[in-house]
């Protein structure tokens, strides 16, 4: 896939909170394909792009922000779409960053009884402090529950909840629900 130049005005009008920083990986979904080109959904914006031969409607793409040029952002494919049921683990891992610990994962009634459908992690932010995050997935919905310290971190997170909802919907290719709540006690682990 050739790098895709995206109109920043269009993208920011559709997704004003989308973080457009060089190196950032964004999730997109292929909606249509016509010859070498197709329409992708990137954070709610519908964009035309040249697509690799193997990409089909419904595939999910991960696009990395390569460059910012004036009113254009240049995006490139971060990975090929999965050819099988599994995304290569190395590419699918959450990126390294601040302290992140996986607390639990389980298959709460997963359809196949084998795969985990819920993941709970603890994020240690330098400024926002400890956040317990629970992400649950079923066939029709992805749901996130994020528990923040009461006060400024909680207020900030509530103000940005829509951004998380959009990102989850794009990443999981299904509607998303987000709850931002106060942690009952800084020492509690929300699972």
């Amino acid at each position, binding site marked *: 896939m050739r790098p895709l130049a995206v109109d920043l005005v269009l993208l920011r009008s559709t997704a004003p909170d989308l973080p457009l920083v060089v190196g950032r990986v964004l999730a997109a979904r292929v909606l249509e394909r016509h010859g070498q080109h197709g329409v992708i959904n990137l954070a709610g914006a519908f964009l035309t792009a040249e697509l690799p031969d193997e990409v089909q409607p419904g595939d999910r793409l991960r696009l990395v922000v390569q460059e910012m040029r004036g009113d254009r952002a240049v995006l490139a494919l971060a990975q090929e779409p999965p050819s099988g049921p599994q995304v290569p683990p190395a590419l*699918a891992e*959450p990126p390294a960053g601040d302290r*992140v610990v996986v607390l639990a994962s389980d298959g709460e009634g997963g359809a196949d009884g084998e795969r*985990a459908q819920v*993941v709970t992690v603890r994020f240690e932010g330098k400024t926002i402090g400890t956040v317990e995050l629970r*992400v649950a997935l079923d066939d029709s919905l992805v749901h996130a529950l*994020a528990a923040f310290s009461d006060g400024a*971190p909680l207020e900030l997170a509530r103000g940005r909840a829509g951004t*998380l909802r959009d990102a989850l919907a794009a990443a*999981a290719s299904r509607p998303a629900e987000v709850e931002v709540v106060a942690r009952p006690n800084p020492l509690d682990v929300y699972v």
Partner: protein
Amino acid sequence: MSDAGALQPALPADVPPALRAAVSAALDWLRDLDQEADAAGEASDLRRPR
């Protein structure tokens, strides 16, 4: 922005790709939130005792 003791999460192999992607997106959001708060110079107001 990583702390010296930063941990990289390793999700279990049986986590479905869509859930894996969702967790990754949520962590990106948290990092952006943390950076935004930090950039706004609100560290002293936001930080809470652990």
